[in-house]
């Protein structure tokens, strides 16, 4: 069986790539993709932890109190989808007025 640490390393790497994407990308849509990567890294973590924390018996016949990792991951999908919907809508309105999706070029607010 693949040890837990492998999953955690993949997840940490994915999270770091996401952070790098958010910080280095100038395009708003690419920033959004970075955020998605970060959230998906969390999902890998949650499911891996859940799988290793529960016994084999309770995987085939789940006990409600031991499902929290899965439930958390399911809520993550929902929230990530809602966030992307709102984020893309905001980015589109910004594009319509600025003809640009680059956050640094929208600079009416300073101080």
């Amino acid at each position, binding site marked *: 069986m693949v040890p837990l640490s492998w999953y955690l390393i993949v997840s940490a790497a994915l*999270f770091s790539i996401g952070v790098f994407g958010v910080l280095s990308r100038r395009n708003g849509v690419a920033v959004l993709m970075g*955020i998605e990567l*970060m959230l998906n890294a969390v999902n890998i973590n949650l499911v891996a932890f859940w799988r290793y924390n529960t016994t084999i018996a309770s995987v085939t016949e789940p006990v409600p109190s031991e499902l929290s990792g899965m439930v958390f991951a399911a*809520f993550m999908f929902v929230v990530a989808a809602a966030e992307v919907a709102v984020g893309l*809508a*905001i980015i589109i*309105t910004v594009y319509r*007025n600025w003809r640009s999706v680059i956050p640094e070029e929208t600079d009416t*607010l300073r*101080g």
Partner: protein
Amino acid sequence: MFESPTLQTLTDYNIWIALPAIALAFGTMFLLVIDVFLPANRKHWTPILALVGIGISFLINLFTYNPEQTSTFGGMFVADAFTGFLNIVVLITAFISVLLSTDYLRRTETNHGEYYILLLLSATGAMFMVGANDLIVIFIGLELLSIPLYILSAFRVTYTDDRDATFVLKSEESGMKYFILGAFSSAFLVYGSALLFGATGTTNLREIFAAVGPILESSAENSGALLLLIGAALSLVGLGFKIAAVPFHMWTPDVYEGAPTPITAYMSVAAKVGGFAALFRLMIVGLSGLTLDAGVDPAAWQGTIQVIAAVTLILGNFVALSQTNIKRMLAYSSIAHAGYILMAVAAVGSAGLVPDIANTAAQAGLVYLLAYAFTNLGAFAVVLALENNDGTGTELSDFNGLYNSRPMLALAMALFMFSLTGIPLTAGFMGKWLVFSAAVQAGLIPLTIIGVLTSVISAFYYVRVIVNMFLLTEDEGSPAVGETAPVRYAVYASMAGVLIVGIAVPLVTNLVNMVSLV
């Protein structure tokens, strides 16, 4: 596998203790449907119905207010004095924000019913965060609080070719900045939550508390302690963004300036209440046992919070000195106030071994939040009254000679500025007094000194507003186009709140004395 619920199990679930939040959620859904079917000439009913919904939830909260801790949804949601008290703060904030919004939306031609629905949804999220006793509920509540706020920040968006319509550009820019940084920070929070879940095998805060001790004892043979530390640190980053603590504050001035003023008023309070409620619960209920030498040392996160509080106090107050726009100034002042409340969190952490002192500190933090809510809402109400439809009129110089044109508004603003400074007989003084004395009791002397010195500095920029209003009498003063009846009621309500919390002290302390987190 699962038993289907019967009427008996439903009552066992105790759902009624979450009723204030559930009622507000139902009210919001109801309003969503009603608003669609309202004819165009009846649209002014939407805010009235929103106020009714908030009022109903407030009444339910008063009737179900119970200092005994009870839990529901399998321990995910708890109701105690902490929940009840902060629910009151959130509902008052939502009520005053709706009052501020009605005429503002009409005169800025953004009068859409969704606005009130999103505002109430956001308040619902804050109420769920306040009662959250589980990492999942904290996360869901935080997102329900934040996502509507991203939309509301960008609410003045219209399609325009007019480069001079800066209020449109500012609003959408603030929405985009808030969204990107908000989503970024919640990813940190949830990564931290996942690590805490991995280390302890549970998402319930009470069970996390129980699991922390054994993990630390056996940490020689596993890496659980490391996971706990990283998880706590990442959660702190995520919540630090929401409460606008330095160094996670960069979005605050831009978003506060660009967002519609009633939304700025709302989010400057509600987002902080939600963030601090989660911080108190997570750090105190969940992680207060996270320490190297249990029973001797304070919690491991306490030093970090002290440093963050000190930096927040210093930077917030000093940068506020150089601001010329009142909304930006109040943004930096709200950063500084987050520092004062963080002092209370740090005090709880360092006094974690002595429940009395720890509870006093938590209570001080709550009183501060209530005082801050009334004062900040009032200050933003006056700013809104002076703001023109195109977003101008929010410079400090626009306050020159306000006493000549609108003496009542000028007096109200002076009261709010005194309260933000912390002058006795105002709510702000009560909050600061309780927080400072709790910090001294907990032995955080250097932090208290920084707090006192920075509040002296803060007097400079708050009093400057008062000087502008009362002493620059050659100006004839702003016409205050936004000062309509609902705005005036909001100002009066905030004034009453500031004075009641400041003078009728026992009223608030009796309410808050029942709060015990430890």
